[in-house]
């Protein structure tokens, strides 16, 4: 989905969101109350600079607007893949960004991630999967790795892999698969503003994704394993 129409549909009461090269940042009104808007666009790769910019915006929101909901708009092509990024310890930057999200959570800010573009692997981990609730919109794409690459590494012929992907949701890209696995709390097809308002009213900070995966039949083992370890 395109970003500017999305902003209008999410926030019909009005928004002041600036969009630069890759950064989406500002605020909007939803159900009469202000929300913070933070995200990425143009299928950016999330690297050390993006992580620090995004964490700065998060920390600013926490400092200036107590408990304000933070709407995270997700569109990335994964982590930045470059020697000089890894050289300066890219995982540390992504962890820092996740810690900033956790800090916002602890300070009482609901974190809602809306995938409207791509959401890939390390990029999705860095910005998106750390939210309290994660939803997708029409046209969104979630992915860990393309089937061609999975085929190469697992040595299963692509056609066989594609056939398998029709029956199970555990490895192939796609929002339907991610939803079935509990990775997306919901898939929205309409009334985005209404859905977002209702979500904000019902959200909490519990990580319920394993239970969702079990209910939906995509991830039937994880939830039971977690429970059994807790009660052993």
């Amino acid at each position: 989905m395109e970003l500017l129409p999305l902003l209008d549909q999410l926030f019909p009461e009005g928004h002041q969101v600036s969009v630069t090269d890759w950064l989406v940042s500002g605020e909007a009104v939803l159900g009469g109350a202000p929300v913070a808007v933070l995200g990425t666009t143009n299928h950016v790769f999330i690297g050390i600079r993006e992580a620090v910019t995004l964490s700065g915006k998060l920390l600013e929101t926490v400092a200036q607007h107590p408990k304000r909901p933070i709407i995270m708009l997700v569109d990335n092509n994964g982590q930045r893949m470059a020697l000089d990024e890894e050289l300066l310890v890219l995982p540390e930057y992504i962890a820092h960004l996740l810690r900033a999200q956790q800090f916002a959570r602890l300070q009482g800010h609901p974190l809602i991630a809306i995938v409207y573009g791509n959401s890939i692997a390390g990029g999705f981990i860095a910005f998106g999967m750390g939210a309290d609730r994660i939803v997708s919109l029409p046209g969104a794409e979630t992915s860990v790795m393309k089937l061609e690459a999975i085929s190469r590494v697992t040595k299963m012929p692509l056609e066989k892999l594609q056939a398998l992907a029709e029956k199970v949701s555990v490895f192939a890209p796609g929002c339907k698969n991610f939803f079935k696995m509990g990775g997306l709390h919901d898939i929205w097809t309409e009334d985005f503003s209404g859905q977002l308002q209702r979500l904000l009213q019902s959200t909490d900070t519990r990580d319920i994704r394993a239970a969702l995966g079990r209910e939906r039949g995509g991830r039937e083992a994880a939830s039971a394993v977690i429970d059994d370890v807790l009660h052993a």
Partner: protein
Amino acid sequence: MKLSRRISYLEASARQRIAALLDPDSFREILPPTLQRISPHLGMFDAPVAFDDGAVIGEGLLCGKPVFLFAQEGKFRGGSLGEVHAAKITGLLLRAAERKPAAVLGLFDSGGVRLEEANAGEIGSTEIMRAIFAAQRAGVPVIGLIGGSCGCFGGSSIISSCCDALIASEEGRLSVSGPEVIETIMGVEAFDSRDRSLVWRTTGGKNRFLFGKVSKLVDDHIPAFREAATALIAPSIPLTAELLQAERQHLSKRIEQFSECTDARQIWAKMGLDANRVPEMSAEELSTAASSLVH
């Protein structure tokens, strides 16, 4: 000079590492392999399973202190995170948040998410991260150990970077994308993954230690990991605005200072070290050299 026999962390299996790391006979495994909680998905790929899905979890003592522990078996499917493997680690961390041991030790040895279970591994990785935050919020520190042959890549690299502290040997590697992946996608000029010296300079324990991400650099010797882990046990530091701002400042400054560098040798020279000697220096020598640097 070490007179005792070297007990290689790199060569040991996950179970051997646990046995040598913790106090003798103190480990009590949770969800032991006798329960055969195997991967529900590998059968579709005609791939063999492991009774513990490549992750050993449990409770034990470290120099008398109660600790929880998870250890990835790097020799099973590259220590990859599958549905059950990840759920075991998540469960262990949530258990620690409730029962509050002195620490959780995480023995990382993983190439990342298991592709046959890519979505489960990916989501599971982030459930582990949320569970680390839960443990830390309860005051329980999570201490990561990196020194296995698979290194710590992909989802595991981010998980480990959320830990309170990391211990690594120079053999350990920490990186989001593996050099082979960067080379495949960006070309060999971007990263020659067969240049071992380059790989270790870039992603290895020494570089990560000199940047401060690894708190303690140790020899490839399990007793050295044990000693370092024991010394690092302290309550988890709560997240505050000051802490995160300081962290962000530190990371921004690193970009400013070193963004022109295209090789670790340039970084080390800029830090004031003898860049050519760094690869040969022992953990102790390098630790001494690093502590005398002006930051």
